[in-house]
């Protein structure tokens, strides 16, 4: 236990846990809506969403901060997880859609008589929950196997992951792919036969996201402090030397790459029922690059910093897009430039520097 975090680390994690598992539920569910202390559904959804992003950021930090591989395809794994779980949510709508038919609305609209093969067994929660892990994991494994075997690295790797994401986005935009085309999945009604829009369900999803985030942080921390993590950092700093020492670097990279993709898929699956929509724009190259900036803002190679960065950038995003929608892109663009130029260690690095000089 002590190996993972110091006393301060455990305290922060404890405070965070108390906040998400006790404070939030209490002020959302048990304080009446008239009371000014009431935490509204808007905040629960927003924080839940940001925690999903934080999971993605931690996954990204594992691969970028520790193994030195910048992926521009994490939006794809996130979306694949979301689509896998979205299928189950679409089946849960049952005959309550616009057309009152047992098939999802978009299939009725396209005049499809039966489910395409991708939807096999999608009415089962456990099957879809398995797909959430297996689909992004398998894709990442196969793609990573070929890429790492032929030693594609650095910018080349970034660019081909971007090409992969872009190709997937084009594919999902097609109606014939069978996932609702442009509109994707939306209008969910139930999850595990429980209505999805009630405060209790919302809070339950929030709590599951929080637990997953904490679990992800602990798992990631455990990995990077293990011997495996030390080898990863060595690969990042001097891959050739690690190879000369007799390590087969490919399997180290492949393992962390696949794990990172799986974590993204899980985050996507938690994100979809909370936000209530998934469509191919989640796979746009811009989204994947944004994930990198969350990590850079918080601090590469710090894990907690990545989660913090996701929170800061997305908090700023929801503030700006409401208050000054036309300035958000200016702000985001400047953030990209300033962080890379002046904050190579991110916010966490800045804090540490202050502490040392003080």
């Amino acid at each position, binding site marked *: 236990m002590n190996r993972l975090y110091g006393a301060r680390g455990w305290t922060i994690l404890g405070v965070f846990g108390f906040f998400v598992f006790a404070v939030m539920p209490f002020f959302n569910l048990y304080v009446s809506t008239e009371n000014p202390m009431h935490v509204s559904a808007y905040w629960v959804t927003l924080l839940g969403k940001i925690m999903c992003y934080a999971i993605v950021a931690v996954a990204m930090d594992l691969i970028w901060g520790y193994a030195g591989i910048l992926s521009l395809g994490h939006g794809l794994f996130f979306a694949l997880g979301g689509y896998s779980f979205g299928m189950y949510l679409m089946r849960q709508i049952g005959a309550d859609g616009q057309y009152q038919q047992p098939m999802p609305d978009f299939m009725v609209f396209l005049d499809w008589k039966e489910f395409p093969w991708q939807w096999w067994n999608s009415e089962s929660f456990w099957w879809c929950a398995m797909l959430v892990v297996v689909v992004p994991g398998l894709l990442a494994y196969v793609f990573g196997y070929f890429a790492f075997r032929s030693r*594609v690295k650095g910018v080349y790797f970034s660019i081909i992951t971007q090409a992969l994401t872009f190709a997937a986005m084009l594919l999902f935009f097609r109606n014939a792919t069978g996932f609702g085309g442009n509109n994707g999945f939306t209008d969910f009604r139930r999850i595990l036969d429980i209505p999805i829009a009630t405060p209790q369900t919302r809070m339950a999803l929030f709590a599951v996201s929080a637990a997953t985030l904490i679990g992800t942080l602990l798992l990631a921390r455990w990995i990077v402090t293990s011997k495996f993590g030390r080898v990863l950092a060595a690969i990042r700093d001097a891959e050739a030397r690690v190879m000369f020492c007799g390590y087969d670097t490919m399997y180290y990279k492949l393992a962390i790459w696949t794990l990172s993709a799986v974590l993204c898929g899980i985050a996507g699956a938690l994100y979809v029922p909370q936000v209530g929509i998934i469509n191919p724009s989640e796979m746009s190259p811009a989204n994947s690059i944004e994930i990198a*900036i969350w990590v850079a803002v918080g601090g590469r190679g710090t894990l907690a910093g990545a989660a913090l960065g996701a929170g800061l950038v997305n908090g700023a995003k929801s503030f700006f897009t409401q208050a000054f929608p036309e300035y958000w892109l200016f702000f985001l663009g400047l953030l990209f430039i300033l962080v890379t*130029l002046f904050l190579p260690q991110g916010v966490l690095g800045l804090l540490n520097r202050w502490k040392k000089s003080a």
Partner: protein
Amino acid sequence: MRMLIIAALLVFPSLVFSQDAKTVEKLAFGESDEKVEAIAALVAAGDEKSAAVLQAMADGDLYTSGKRVLIVKDDAATDAATGGKLAKVPEDKEDITVNNRLRRELNGALAALKLISPKVEVRHAAAKELLGRAEPAMLPLVKKALGKESNPDVKAMLEQIAAALELKAEDRATRLAAVRKLASSNNSSTKTLLLSFLGSEKDEELRAEAQKSVRAIEGSVAWGERLGVVFTSVSLGSILLLAALGLAITYGLMGVINMAHGELIMLGAYSTYVVQNLFKGSAYFDWYLLAAVPAAFIVPALVGMALERSVIRWLYGRPLETLLATWGISLILIQAVRTLFGAANVQVENPAFMSGGVEAFTGVVLPWSRVVIIGFALFVLLLVYLLLNKTRLGLFVRGVTQNREMAACVGVSTARIDTWAFGLGSGIAGLAGCALSQIDNVGPNLGQNYIVDSFMVVVLGGVGQLAGTVYAALGLGFANKLLEAWQGAVLAKIAVLIFIVFFIQKRPQGMFALKGRAIES
């Protein structure tokens, strides 16, 4: 009522007694089928007056007033049946509604009537319009036009039209002649026509002839299609080449991952838009591109140089950071353009000489804009080649690429060369934008559509030289268009992307890798 009609008959005897008037009446008051018959009858008559009536009906100028049919134009009414002028426009006039079916018939009929126009161009256009979609009722008119036609092109087309119509003739010899005549067609709709003819024809000899004709047409149509595919491939290749040439310098030679490259293309397109607006209304509008090309080079070049000086310079040797910072720049440029010009697409008009196209084969039209862009791409390529290989700046750029320290040692100011080279690459991106503004929508997101493609071209071609970029651009153009003809645009694009992903894994240095000892960079 009856009294009224008798009175009307007494006043306008022509209404009843001329064949023409009956047709016009059917046209105005009849059921849909009757109206179609009337149109056919008017076409068969094929004179000036019928043409006027049909034109009026198509334009919505045909009205009924009581039992009379009037053409009302510019507050003057003419009786459609007799051609006599009326003193004033009657108050009780009513529209004749023209539904879609009638409109189709009318358009065909009007085209047929244009066959007898005195102007060659009008006849040519009309004959082309009718190729493969003439109605049997037009046969007399086509024959009449054929007798009078002197222009060989139009005559050949008219013969095709007549032959297509004569396929349905009763007389076997006529049908045989028609089938033989159609063999010289290179129009795919003629093939459809012959195939349906094969479906109904019983006579063995005629069938054999028809099959021979189908094969002949298939041959020439296939050539036309192949030519079309080659042209669109070269056209797409030239666009990719233009978009990627600038990147071949900034990324290929300098090693800067410039994610804002697409936005520099977009700036070039917007510069063209601004210059075009300055020329609007002037007599020299057709020549605005002469001013737009330098502007589209200079504006992005200056922006690029400023970026190199302020941001990119500090990130040399850190490619992943460069990627993120230039992505940030691209976001700022997109939003800046959105704030200045609005989020909607802006209108860039082609100069007159670039609109329209040249028809190389029936059904294969090469738009002038595309032809000009292919030429422009070659021009820019030549320019870049000369600049890199024949000038002092080019020598220095190549020197810095090969060995930065050595170049600095012999007195090259490497920092200044970096700025100039980056400006050059940005300016060429702007030229691509100028070309794209002629064929694509110009909006703030223009660049986003080209950034992935440009990187693919440069990466596929191999970093560090131009020849690879040219081959990769043309290769991708062909691959895209050939797959598109087979599987549709989206799947073609996906297939090409996946192909590149695998290709890079096989040959990470691209098709034309520079030979050297760089094991790890």
